[in-house]
Every structure is written in structure tokens, then in C-alpha cells.
């Protein structure tokens, strides 16, 4: 456990990448949206989607943790498994703290009627519009999911370079295609639609958690044969 914590600390030494940039970029996105909402108010309230910036940046952080930080990490006398799990511990900790931060900001947004302009930045309909603990949990799951996804991309790149990366993306597109074709052939679109329209927000969080676990397993399998 001590080694896992040390791996997490190793990443955190780079505060710029893991702390300053995710929040800085999201703050920038927020300010841009706030200005727009102020000068161009919309009667139904402004829905922005700008919150996605922090998730996208965490995906990039995940990729960095398995590319730029990997050679020195593995020089430190630890196994690939420990390196992966220590990094996963980092994102679990960051997910708890950052998720709480997003929850607090959402509470402020709600209390101020959207920062006085009707802006919906931290409130996302359906998925992140429930009670605070639900927002916290969903934020946590999503932050971890994006980071683990980025880690997997980073590992695929380390092992198989650009060709591998392209193949990896193509494989995901093909997997999606198979689902679409299968749903069409078996005339199951109604069932698919029913599944998503009746899915509750907590159930959606559960589905996302399962996806995150699958991504983590994929990354853990990929790192096993990475060479430096």
C-alpha cells in the first residue's frame, strides 16, 4: 500500500498537469460561458456542456501518466502492476476531491440561480441534476472513467505506437457498429430506446461504473507486456 501511495505521490509532484491545468481550463471555459450567458441571456436558461472540459483534460492526464511519466516510473524498482494500480489510486483520490469540488460549485450555481444569469454550467439535465450526494458520486465515477480511458490510450500508444492507436480507435468504432447492426437485424431498437428512456440517473451511474471497471481491466491487461 505504501508503494501505491508513493506512485500516486510521484504523479502529484507534477501539480501543473494534475491540479492546475484541469481546474484552470475548466475555469476558463466557465468564464467564457458566463460572459456569453450575461450578454446573450436565454429565457429557458443557458445550457452549455462546458463542464466536459475537465473530463476531457483528465483523459489527457491519464494518457500522460502512462506515456511521459512511465519510463521514470518503471525505473523506480516497481512492477507494472503496481505502477498501474498506484496511478488508479491517484485518480480515485482525485475523483473524490474533484467530485466534491464540482458538487459544491453546483450547489453554488443552484443557490445563485445560475450565477445570476440562468447559466447551467455545473448542472447537466438528467445525469447531474439530482441531490448533492448523487452529483458527487456521478462526478467521481465519470472522472475516474475518463482518466482510466486515457490511461488505456496511453498504454496502447506505448506498446503499439500510432498504428496501434488507430487500430484501437477503429476497433471501438467497429464494436459500436456491431451493436447497431445487431439491433437493426434483430429489430430491437425499441428495446434499446426503452432501456435508455427508463434508465434512472443512479442506474446510469451504475452503468458508467461498470464501463470504468472494464476500461481499468483493459489497461491493466495492456500494461503487463509494456517494455521500456
Amino acid at each position, binding site marked *: 500500500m505504501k*508503494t501505491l501511495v*508513493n506512485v500516486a*505521490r*510521484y504523479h502529484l*509532484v*507534477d501539480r501543473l*498537469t494534475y491540479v492546475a491545468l484541469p481546474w484552470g481550463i475548466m475555469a476558463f471555459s466557465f468564464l467564457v460561458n458566463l460572459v456569453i450567458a450575461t450578454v446573450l441571456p436565454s429565457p429557458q436558461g443557458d445550457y452549455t456542456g462546458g463542464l466536459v472540459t475537465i473530463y476531457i483534460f483528465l483523459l489527457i492526464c491519464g494518457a500522460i501518466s502512462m506515456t*511521459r*511519466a512511465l*519510463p*521514470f516510473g*518503471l*525505473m*523506480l*524498482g*516497481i*512492477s*507494472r*502492476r*503496481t505502477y498501474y494500480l498506484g496511478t488508479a489510486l491517484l485518480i480515485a483520490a482525485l475523483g473524490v476531491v474533484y467530485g466534491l469540488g464540482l458538487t459544491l460549485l453546483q450547489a453554488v450555481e443552484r443557490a445563485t440561480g445560475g450565477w445570476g444569469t440562468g447559466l447551467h454550467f455545473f448542472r447537466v439535465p438528467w445525469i447531474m441534476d439530482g441531490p448533492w450526494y448523487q452529483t458527487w458520486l456521478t462526478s467521481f465515477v465519470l472522472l475516474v472513467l475518463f482518466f482510466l480511458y486515457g490511461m488505456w490510450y496511453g498504454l496502447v500508444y506505448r506498446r503499439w505506437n500510432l498504428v496501434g492507436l488507430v487500430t484501437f480507435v477503429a476497433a471501438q468504432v467497429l464494436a459500436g457498429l456491431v451493436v447497431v447492426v445487431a439491433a437493426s437485424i434483430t429489430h430491437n431498437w425499441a428495446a434499446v430506446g426503452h432501456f435508455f428512456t427508463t434508465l434512472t440517473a443512479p442506474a446510469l451511474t451504475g452503468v458508467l461504473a461498470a464501463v470504468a471497471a472494464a476500461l481499468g481491466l483493459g489497461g491493466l491487461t495492456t500494461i*503487463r*507486456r509494456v*517494455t*521500456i
Partner: protein
Amino acid sequence: MTPTISTTALGRRYRGQAALEDVSLEVEPDTVTGLLGRNGAGKTTLMRIVTGLEFPTSGSIAVFGETPAENESVLRRMVFVREDQAYPDLRVSHVIRVASWFYPNWSEELARQLLTDFDLPLQRRIRKLSRGMRSAVGIVIGLAARAELTLFDEPYAGLDAVARQLFYDRLLADFAEHPRTVVLSTHLIDEVADLLEHVVVLDRGRVVLDAPADDVRGTAMTVSGPVTAVEEFVAGRAVWHRQRLGARAAVTVAGPLGAAAQARARALHLSLEPLTLQQLLVHAASSPADEKVSA
């Protein structure tokens, strides 16, 4: 005693190209071994397999008696300083601090001493360092870690002669106080010749020499003097190399030469000079396979 490193018929192929082939060797505890050979001979590949960063395609390897790959009880006990080490975008002080968390025998005192010796700017980012300074960071980690098995792969690329001497001095001094197994790969063979207790030479992925350094040093002698005297002396000996300049000749013969032969050389007013390690290796690398150095 269990050898620190032991390999049996170890091999590593990359797309049909053999980087290592049939490597069987042992490295004894608390010795300094030189891993020598030309570019692409397989030195780095061997060290990467020893440290579990690369996987062999054939044969087996044991470090401290166990397989190193993904084996933390083994990995913890070694440090690997390599020429092409990539660092994240951190400051020198950060990198040193991170290293100190992971090596159980880390000496903060030695690290600080070495940082001062090499005059490293603590607050500078690693990627802004010159090549020599980056090498020095690796050397600081490699020595301060005081790992039971310390591997240096061309650790001083870009370092000036003064800094290299500093490295040798510090390595020897700390080795004397805290014995450990050191494997050092380098092209500057004559510089390290006195440090080495054991020499392993790789050529195109194969071990061509594996012997105590003292045995290697007596392997060949260059006899020089008047042509007739030299030719008389070397008659019947295995000649490696002949060079003639006017009435004088220099002939390299296989050694070692016994006391009688040496006395005879003196009587003939010939000068005898043992080949340096570097000369031996150059000779071994440029000669056909059947007359490789053997000791």
C-alpha cells in the same frame, strides 16, 4: 552463494533479428563487472531484461535467484541508470525526491553530496538540462540508491573528463563502504579498466568473452624491437598482429608469457607491453570468429 545474476541460453529476437542469442553467464555478488561491446552488441537489451523492463524470447534469467519481470521483491533491490532515461517534466530536486521514496537503502547524505559535486541546478527542469547534466542526475540516483544490484548503462554520455573521474572516485569510495554488485556498460574501456573485476564482452548478441579482468589483461603482449630479434622471439607463438616500420617490428602474440620468456625478451633487448583491455577488445572485434580472445 547464489549469483546475483544468472542467465541460461538467454535470447531476445526482434522481428527475426537476434538482439541476444544464447547468453549464459553469472555475475557474482559484490563484484564490479564490465559489460563491454560495440554499438548494438546487445548490452542494453541484456540490462533491460535483467531489470524486467524487457522480456526474453528464449532461455531463462534469475536475479537474486528469482525471475525479475514483475517481481517486486527483486526489482526493489536494484537500480538501473541508463543513457536514454526519459524523465517526466519535473525539476531536478523533484526527480531526486521521488527516487528517495522508492529505494529502501537511499542515502540522502550521499545524494546531497553528489548534487553539489556535479554542480546540478536543483530548481531547473530536467528537459532544460544539458546532456551531461542529465547524465549526472542519473548517476546521483544510481549511487545514492545504494541498491544491492546497481546497473549503469553508458551512464556518462556527455559528461566531461573531470565529471567522469568524479563518478569513478565516488563509485569506488561508496563501493568500498557499502559493497554491492555493479554492472557497468561503457565504451570508454580504458578509463574503467582498473575498476573492473570481471569482464563480459558481447558481440552481435553473443558472449565472446567472460573472464576475470586480471586474466584478460595478460591475454596478449606486444613485442617490439629490431625485426630479427622480434622474429626470433615470436617464432612458434600464436601471432595476432604484425607491424613493421623499417628495421623495427611490433608483433602481438598470445600471452601470458612466463618468467623464462620474459627473461629472454630482456636478453634480446626487446620491449614487452601487455595489450590494454581496449586494444584487446578492438582486436577481438576485428578478427574472424575462430580466433576470438579466450581466457
